[in-house]
């Protein structure tokens, strides 16, 4: 039987080195040297990786050195983004019920609202008309007001549907629930003397009812470096209410239950480095909705869907654009 060629003997040794073939007999020195090189090549970097990192660095290098704040003026770290059928009706509801001030309205060619922004108290909310590409995502929002009874009345007159009337709650808040014409849930509350509201809690706090809130809290810590600042839970670990701080904003969450079923959020999240946090969120278990890319409105933006159905638009403001 003829001796296998050098190329053949080398491949047998490489198969063994890669763990996919039987260990060969004693290989000659020449083969051993080549296998040693082959072993080093298992760590060879991907050319695509090298090129994509280079492109990313070039993009970063071209960012103006007099950088703008990574959070667009007027916004905070977290902003609820409502996607509804009938956005104008929701805007009008917010104006009448909460005194919302419309800041921006951008229409699509068909006349529907592509994107609008309005201010309630000290906070911004964004809204867009649902369509074939973007299904409705009604959200839950905790709204802090000075007079919950008056706001409740105005909300009903403005077309809202009562979820529950103003009630003094044991957790230190007189609150009510109203559903707006777009299906968003507004939990409207006025702090009582002993309240769970934090001193720096703003007018608008996104509110998440979620199945397995405890696991969601762990995810938020890993994906977005969220800080747990409050948690009330049963002895067996069911989270009634928790507050998470992300950047300068708060997010409230609790275990979904009737009459508060799971209601995923659509959130705009401003961060210093979109790409880094996008990767961090994916590593924590989120799925990509859109890879980070520069947008004509001056933001670099990527989207992920977390394991609980919430969508996060991870954004860095990179330049100011006049609309």
């Amino acid at each position, binding site marked *: 039987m003829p001796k296998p060629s050098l190329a053949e003997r080398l491949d047998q040794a490489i198969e063994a080195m890669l763990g996919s073939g039987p260990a060969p007999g004693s290989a000659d020195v020449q083969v051993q040297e080549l296998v040693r090189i082959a072993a080093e090549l298992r760590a060879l*970097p991907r050319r695509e990786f090298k090129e994509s990192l280079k492109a990313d*660095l070039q993009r970063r290098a071209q960012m103006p050195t007099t950088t703008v704040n990574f959070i667009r003026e007027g916004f905070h770290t977290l902003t609820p983004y409502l996607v509804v059928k009938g956005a104008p009706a929701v805007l009008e509801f917010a104006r009448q019920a909460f005194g919302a001030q419309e800041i921006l309205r951008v229409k699509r060619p068909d006349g529907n609202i592509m994107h609008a922004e309005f201010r309630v108290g000290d906070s911004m909310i964004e809204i867009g008309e649902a369509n074939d590409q973007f299904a409705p995502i009604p959200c839950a929002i905790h709204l802090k007001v000075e007079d919950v009874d008056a706001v409740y009345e105005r909300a009903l007159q403005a077309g809202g549907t009562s979820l529950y009337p103003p009630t003094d709650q044991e957790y230190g808040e007189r609150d009510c629930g109203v559903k707006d014409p777009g299906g968003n849930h507004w939990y409207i509350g006025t702090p009582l003397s002993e309240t769970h509201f934090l001193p720096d809690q703003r007018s608008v706090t996104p509110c998440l009812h979620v199945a397995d809130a405890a696991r969601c809290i762990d995810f938020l810590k890993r994906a977005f470096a969220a800080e747990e600042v409050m948690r009330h839970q049963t002895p067996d670990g069911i989270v009634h209410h928790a507050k998470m701080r992300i950047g300068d904003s708060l997010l409230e969450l609790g275990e979904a239950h009737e009459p508060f079923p799971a209601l995923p959020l659509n959130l705009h999240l401003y961060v210093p480095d979109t790409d880094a946090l996008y990767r961090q969120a994916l590593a924590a278990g989120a799925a990509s909705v859109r890879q980070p890319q520069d947008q004509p409105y001056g933001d670099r933006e990527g989207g992920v869907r977390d394991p609980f159905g919430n969508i996060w638009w991870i954004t860095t403001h990179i330049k100011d654009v006049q609309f």
Partner: protein
Amino acid sequence: MKAPKKEADERLLVEAAQADPARFADLYESHFERVYAFIAGRVRNRQEAEDLTSEVFRQALQNLRRFEWRGVPFAAWLLRIAANAMADRWQQVAREQGDPPPEPPDAAAAEDIEGRALLFQLVGTLAPDQRRVIVARFVEQKSIRDIAQELGRSEGAVKQLQFRALRNLRVHIKPRPENGAPGGRRAHA
């Protein structure tokens, strides 16, 4: 290897990038394989190596103006960033898993980072069909049969390409001491 032969050349590259960050690309091209080789020998898988390499170069770009030329090679500065990034990552993992953190990697460890970095760069100089076989075999971990089908060649021809590629690379690589474990401390997935 494309790394500057003389300290003065490297200093010019660094100062150019400090004055104009767009010139950072030159430093990146000079040092990418070195940083990757340093990290790849110490982490568990390719994804981790890529994440950490990205982090190192982003930090380097961000902090480039803070680099002061005091006779220490720019590569040493990069490897120090890499060592810190790995130490941070391991401490985070250790905290999450409740394990004591491992010893931080030593950026100055005298091992063959340079040899491995050179090897990575040399792959780019191979003939296209040899390079394709090396990448398919060792990066993509494909079998000879799959590569043969992909290239429309016989398995014997692919083995010959693999052999020639490795032989060409060996010409430029110094023999390693026998006690060196091949493939770094932890093999790539």
